[in-house]
């Protein structure tokens, strides 16, 4: 076992007094049952009245969120698309496919976040409003982490381009600036607005220099005194060399140009050109990458990773991916300044900057309340072939382990189980076993649901589960006295034993009532009749009735006889069959030939000779036996008479 990564969180169950009483629990898939026992902790003999409830403790609570359900359903489609990406694809086309998938995942997270935000605003009571807001911040953190992982692990941007991606990342997640900008520009005199310089500073911090220049030109228009230095600042902003995506210049060229520009800025600082305007002077210091000046804007930067990116932008724009972790760690330290300790999110981002994927996933698993994020992210990174070598001590790799956890959570939910099936499908080692275990435990309240479950099992050749589900349905039908339905289900399951049982019920009902129910089914058995001997008999016996009804006596007679001689008919039913033969024996014309009559007699003798002799018998039994004896005597008489007639007829035919 690996050591623990910190103390597990304590979950307090309201109403359960664990101090006084001992608790008991039982594991389930994705959930746990907990209840108080009646044993007190201190003295074993004393019985303390305990809490009368059994609690269900769920691990993956997010599965039960109405809004997150959309996330699960929509991402399920993306997940399937990802699994179908051709393994043959390599190089650029594969990478662009994977980036597209990653963006799709993120857009689903964002859509969910926006809806959650709407709900949080519309929430009537503050408690649920807070709950939704905290969900929004969790989703936002998820998107932030995912986006960074996308840049670092999937895009694998080279030096130069890396910073452009990081800038986009920061701009996307620190987006208060847009509302501020609208606010300032909407006012009558923008340059006199209280937040004017804040806005310009934020624009510079985010590297949006074009917008910053436009703002400065407004200031220049408003106060002619500072117009000159504003123009100089504007020129500095305009001339800052940046790597544009379409540009073909080399990294060395860029570095050279940047160095010149940097020196130019330095000169302006030494000349104290902007000394008259403290705002512009601080902007210049920021553009020189001055750490102290940057840290003065802590409020506007709002977090350390913004600080990191701005610092890189103005001090080392062509930073290499491998150097990132150094800057990240020092930025975090500088930003927090020993005042506060890093939060889980900080640790996750730091691990990402260190390119430690496993640490990212581990921290996320601990920090987040759902498996969705880690399962999907790990799966995507696995498709980028970044996780190959990592095997866990319990037999499957990390991707599979996380997918299994996530899918099990879905199966614990009363209606998301269908999504879980596809996730199990893509777990090569333990997926199938898990599916087999879970699928049998889905409650089947309607046949339609059962059909859906059956389809899942049949598509995957899970014959054992198909059999068991059909048997459950067949049993249910028998209990509800729906014999036709029961028979259909046992035919579908190819369950011979159960088909025999149901056929027996049909035959018993027939003996009691003298007519068959569910003829529409029995008369249309077709090849399914061959499933069990008893079912064959049932079908054939119905055929006999048909023939008899159509007055095809000879056919009916030979069928009846063959049912007995071939031993398809259960012995308990022979007496009924022989009784059925009575009217045929009594017909005017001779139907049973002499030979057939001998066989019938043989059957009758077989039946009577093997009858068990009972010691004690009550009146009812005596009466029954009485009837039986009369029947046998009637049969003997009819058989004898038929035999006589048959011999005469056969003899006379031969003679003529």
């Amino acid at each position, binding site marked *: 076992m690996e050591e623990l990564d910190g103390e597990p969180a304590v979950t307090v169950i309201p109403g359960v007094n664990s101090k006084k009483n001992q608790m008991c629990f039982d594991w389930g898939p994705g959930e746990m049952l907990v209840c108080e026992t009646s044993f007190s902790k201190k003295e074993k003999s004393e019985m303390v009245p305990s809490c009368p409830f059994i609690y269900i403790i769920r691990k993956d609570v997010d599965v039960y969120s*109405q*809004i997150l*359900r*959309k996330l699960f*359903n*929509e991402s*399920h*489609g993306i997940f*399937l*698309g990802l699994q179908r990406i051709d393994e043959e694809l390599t190089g650029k086309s594969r990478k662009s496919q994977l980036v597209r998938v990653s963006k799709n995942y993120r857009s689903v997270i964002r859509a969910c976040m*926006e*809806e959650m935000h*709407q709900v949080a605003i519309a929430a009537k009571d503050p408690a649920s409003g807070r709950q939704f807001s905290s969900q929004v911040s969790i989703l936002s953190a998820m998107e932030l982490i995912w986006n960074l992982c996308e840049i670092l692990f999937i895009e694998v941007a080279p030096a130069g381009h890396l910073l452009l991606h990081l800038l986009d990342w920061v701009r996307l997640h620190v987006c208060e600036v847009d509302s501020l900008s609208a606010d300032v520009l909407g006012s009558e005199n923008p340059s006199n607005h209280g937040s004017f310089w804040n806005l310009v500073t934020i624009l510079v911090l985010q590297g949006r220099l074009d917008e910053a220049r436009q703002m400065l030109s407004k200031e220049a228009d408003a106060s002619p005194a500072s117009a000159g230095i504003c123009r100089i600042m504007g020129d500095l902003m305009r001339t800052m060399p940046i790597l544009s995506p379409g540009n073909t210049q080399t990294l060395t060229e860029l570095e050279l140009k940047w160095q010149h520009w940097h020196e130019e800025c330095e000169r302006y600082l030494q000349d104290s050109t902007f000394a008259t305007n403290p705002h512009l002077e601080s902007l210049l210091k920021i553009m020189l990458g001055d750490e102290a000046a940057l840290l003065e804007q802590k409020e506007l930067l709002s977090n350390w990773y913004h600080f990191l990116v701005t610092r890189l932008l103005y001090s080392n724009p062509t930073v290499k991916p491998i150097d990132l972790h150094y800057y990240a760690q020092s930025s975090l330290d500088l930003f927090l300044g020993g005042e506060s300790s890093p939060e889980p999110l900080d640790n996750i981002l730091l691990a990402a900057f260190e390119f430690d994927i496993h640490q990212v996933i581990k921290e996320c698993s601990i920090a987040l309340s759902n498996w969705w994020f880690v399962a999907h992210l790990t799966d995507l990174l696995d498709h980028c072939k970044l996780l190959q070598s990592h095997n866990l001590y319990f037999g499957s790799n990390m991707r599979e382990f996380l997918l299994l956890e996530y899918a099990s959570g879905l199966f614990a939910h*009363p*209606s998301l189980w*269908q*999504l879980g099936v*596809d996730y199990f499908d893509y777990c090569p080692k333990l997926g199938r076993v898990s599916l087999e275990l879970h699928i049998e435990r889905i409650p089947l*309240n*309607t*046949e*339609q*649901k059962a*059909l*859906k479950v059956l*389809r899942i099992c049949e*598509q995957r050749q899970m014959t054992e589960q198909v059999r068991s589900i059909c048997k459950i349905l067949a049993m249910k039908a028998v*209990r*509800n*006295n*729906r*014999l*036709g*339905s029961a028979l*259909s289900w046992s035919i579908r399951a190819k369950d011979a034993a159960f088909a025999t049982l149901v056929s027996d019920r049909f035959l018993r009902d027939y003996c009691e009532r003298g007519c068959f*129910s*569910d*003829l*529409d*089914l029995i008369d*249309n058995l*077709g*090849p*399914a009749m061959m499933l069990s001997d008893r079912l064959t008999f049932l079908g054939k016996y119905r055929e006999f009735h048909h023939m008899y009804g159509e007055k095809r006596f000879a056919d009916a007679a030979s069928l009846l006889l063959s049912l007995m001689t071939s031993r398809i008919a259960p012995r308990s039913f022979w007496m009924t069959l022989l009784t059925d033969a009575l009217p045929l024996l009594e017909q005017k014309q001779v139907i049973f030939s002499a030979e057939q009559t001998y066989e019938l007699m043989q059957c009758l003798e077989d039946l009577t000779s093997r009858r068990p002799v009972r010691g004690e018998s009550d009146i009812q039994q005596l009466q029954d036996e009485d009837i039986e004896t009369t029947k046998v005597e009637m049969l003997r008489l009819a058989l004898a008479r038929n035999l006589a007639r048959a011999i005469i007829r056969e003899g006379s035919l031969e003679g003529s």
Partner: protein
Amino acid sequence: MEEIYAKFVSQKISKTRWRPLPPGSLQTAETFATGSWDNEENYVSLWSIGDFGNLDSDGGFEGDHQLLCDIRHHGDVMDLQFFDQERIVTASSTGCVTVFLHHPNNQTLSVNQQWTTAHYHAGPGSPSYSSAPCTGVVCNNPEIVTVGEDGRINLFRADHKEAVRTIDNADSSTLHSVTFLRTPEILTVNSIGQLKIWDFRQQGNEPSQILSLTGDRVPLHCVDRHPNQQHVVATGGQDGMLSIWDVRQGTMPVSLLKAHEAEMWEVHFHPSNPDHLFTCSEDGSLWHWDASTDVPEKSSLFHQGGRSSTFLSHSISNQANVHQSVISSWLSTDPAKDRIEITSLLPSRSLSVNSLDVLGPCLVCGTDAEAIYVTRHLFS
């Protein structure tokens, strides 16, 4: 078929139905109802695809459907039909049949009428009842016919408290779906591949006619009648096969068309353009079948996104019908002459498409992936 809008609704959708348009109206459909299944709480919901324009607060774009109102439904919604403009009839997995009334003024739904134990199992020898799921309902104002897993057929009238007519043990297996053939005749399909015609004028519990698939007894899940030619009936089966029947003749289907890879849950003729047919399936696909004869380039078998079907025809009818003025394109069984063009309407398939409905140029369908898809330009 670019303009198909998807919306995830956090509940598995079992049924979708357009609200019928008032007679003589020139509007296009804009309201539909959905029912959910397999949730802890199930709902009947009404949605509008009407233009909200700028009033739309949460950034929804044109064509996106908005929830008008919903109401809790006890048990899974197994089937759902509009009784008239305001009333919706639902079949529940609890065996209950409910009529909901929509109040357009304050956009609410309320229970108007309920038959709680319409479908039930009578236990062996005991008087105790256990409910049986009601699987299908069909309305023809003022009559409502329901069928269930108990093999029972009920005939209700909207203004009667009790069932007008009940046929117990009408079927030994589960009845999956029901439709009106011509009043007072109905048509049911069951789980052993039979199509039965019942005439309410006849007493007793025997069907007036039984048609069946031969041999395999493949369960039939859905049935729809041609809107103009009442003898033409389409059914969909467990193997995804589409069968076309002529109930006037023969006891076997006129043609069997290989279609989906899993259960076909619903089949619908287009109500005003019946050469078009729509089917949806457990395999997650939604198909548009076009058998109209005036399609240009009829010879091209494949067009974009489409596939041509394999005919397994049982030539029974055809020749006799040639001289009739109107021949249904669905009954002609010459595979070389009349290809049916099939177009798949959903972009990527995943979980089951449980239900669909068409009205004019509009189509709505609902899936187990908790999405509702709507398009308003079917024939563009």
